[in-house]
């Protein structure tokens, strides 16, 4: 997005930009972001929901929804267009997986090895609750059981 700054520095701020090497052209052809309209708030909500589960490729761990980068914005537009065309959220996600790999999903699918990821915490909590119940029972038992 450097180019926009260069351009603006040159045009808006006058001769401020002397230190910068490049010149200030070509911004006019840039596509404007596809801006959310309130007209279809259901579509917008669905876009937000899907975009929140996809990872922005040029950021660090941010979702498409959160990232201010150009690519994330364009990918959100693709999400919106596909949803508008009648694709289901899962189909949209599958499209991005086919292009970028599983990496793009911020939440791993509940299949194969990934199941462990979801079950280990649940098992830990259940096991922990059983253990606590057991310990409390034993520790509150009448004196005779403790040596």
């Amino acid at each position, binding site marked *: *997005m*450097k180019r*926009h*700054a260069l*351009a*603006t*520095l*040159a*045009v*808006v*701020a006058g001769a*401020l*930009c002397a*230190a*910068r090497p490049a010149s*200030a052209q070509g*911004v*006019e052809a840039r596509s*404007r*972001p596809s*801006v*959310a309209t309130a007209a279809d708030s259901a579509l917008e909500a669905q876009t937000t929901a899907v975009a*929140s*589960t996809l*990872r922005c490729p040029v950021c*660090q*761990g*941010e*979702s498409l929804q*959160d*990232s*201010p980068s*150009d690519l994330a*914005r364009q990918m959100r537009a693709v999400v919106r267009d596909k949803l508008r065309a009648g694709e289901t959220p899962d189909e949209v996600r599958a499209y991005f997986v086919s292009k970028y790999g*599983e*990496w*793009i*999903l*911020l*939440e*791993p699918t509940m299949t*194969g*090895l*990934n199941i462990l*990821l*979801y079950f*280990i*915490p649940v098992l*830990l*909590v259940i096991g*922990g609750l059983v*253990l*606590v119940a057991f*310990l*409390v*029972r034993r*520790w*509150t038992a009448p004196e005779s059981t*403790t*040596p």
Partner: protein
Amino acid sequence: MIDLLAHNALLVSLAAVAFGAILTPVTIRTGRREWLQLVYGAVYANFLLVSIAAVSMVVALVTHDFSVSYVAQVGSRSTPLLFTVISLWGALEGSILFWAWVLGLYSAAVVALHRRRLGNLVPYAVMTLLAVAAFFAILLVGPADPFLPVFPVPADGPGPNTLLQNHYLMAVHPPLLYLGYVGMSVPFAFALGAIFSNEAASNDWSILSRRWMLTSWGFLSAAIIAGMWWSYEVLGWGGYWAWDPVENASFLPWLTATAYLHSVMVQERRNMLRLWTLNLCVATFVLTILGTFLTRSGILSSVHAFTTGAIGYYFLAFIAIVLVTTLMLVAGNSERIQTKGKLGGAASRETVFLLNNLFLTAVMLTVLVGTLYPLVAEAVRGVKVSVGVPFFNRMALPAMVSLLFLMGVGPALPWGSTTWADARKRLYPPGIAAMILGAIAVIAGARSVYAILAFAFVGYAAMSNVREFWIGMRARHRAHGESWPTALVRLVAGNRRRYGGYVAHIGVLLIALGITASSTFRSEREATLTPGQTLTVAGHTVRLKNLWGREEPQRSVIGATMDVVGKNGAIIGTMEPRMNYYRVSDQPVPTPAVRSSITGDLYVNLMAFESSGANATVKVIVEPFVPWIWFGGLVIVIGAIIGLGYGGRSATAPAPATNPAPSIASADS
């Protein structure tokens, strides 16, 4: 010149800490305790030497001495003085130097405060600290040497990482984080010292170490909040927590430290959970090292990953040594440390503490597993996967919401035991508060089950904790006729540990409220505006006035001036979201404008703009209650400071008459 001085200081400090660490067991085995003065001398010498190195680095940075490798890497003549000074921790080598300095500071403080104590606990704890210091000293004279000579000397440098020089919070967050992280070496050192000196079966080591843990915990809490604030102010998406590996790395030891602060109370009162508490102590330290390793070695991709290289292998070796040594020591001595537990009854604060420890540990393990899973998936399946926000929210939120609930139950229940009827009576007022807050949340439009539960439990726990103050104050007011403020002060002063804890609870609740409200009731819109056009989000209207550019020595700034328009059309304020283009980076650093009030923030970020100044694309986010998070952080720190005070023995005072606690005298040998 200065680099030579500093480099030699670091070499001597390595020799000093190695000497001290080796001399300690010799001293104890041979019974020549007078030699301990040498060990303690080594600790002070190390602190002095590392201080010389750190000050040298600051001097080199400030004087732009580009013949020093670290200065050539992060310095720049155009960087403002504040950011030049704080670039001390802006990159890998400097941050390790700073780490070593903080560790030196803590070690010297431990020696100064505890050296007169009899027995071998303190010497062995000091030995452990020296061993850890030796690792960082090795890094500093080896792979992370910040004082390497550069030739030819460059005329100027690139300046610090742009993200780090964009906000003054970078002067606050890293030092707090290091004070928290490194401070957790001290309780760890006491834990290992207790094992080495055969004192692990006594309460002494935890009485010594718990204040160090509370201190570090306070710093770490503040650091986490400051880090959230920084990312809120700099990253431009209106969020403060993204479950990034580095955020997780700071959160993991916080969770175990919090669990420790609770379980240590049970240990002291009931003479139980001894092994568990020791494990938490050790785990906290291991997690600080693990977190540093994961995020600094480049093994996981993160905002903060500095570099890959030889230093990663040193960290790997260190982590292997730490893990193997501590696991061996703790497991090998576990039979001697373990004690039989005894509870007064199931309906007691102890039970709640057990559950609290369970859920804190569960959150910790969930976050740890989620953070490491991409590595596991790649190793096993050969596929890169991401584990991000949706996963952590889904998996960690239930346990975190449960913890909010427990925060209300714990303070309401007495130590020892009570009847279920009494417990019900005690939990009645919080229950009412829960229903009220839950109902308000539903009326306000919350629909997610977790959000409603979180609001309800915040109300529940807030009532419960505030009621503790109320009950205590009322008792003093009635019994001694004290005025309410006097009653409050004397109440807290009489049992600082207990009431400090409640204050910290209230801080956590403020944060929970801020997080729940801001994520539930957040509204945002993005639009392209021409000057004069307005955008309204959730009742807040902003109008684009104009776009401007400004040249500063280290950066170019593009800003949009936005008027905040009140209900009647009058201008009630101005906001200037900016994009900062640093000379050294292609990526602009967004600098959103935030307008805070007690009910929430208006957050405006400049997303894009037309070169002619004809229009600007802005994102406007309305986030209720965000400032409560920062305020809650402050309250936690106040709680920690209160809890650190020497509140006498009353921390263990009102023992229940129904069920006397088992004698702990035998353990205090």
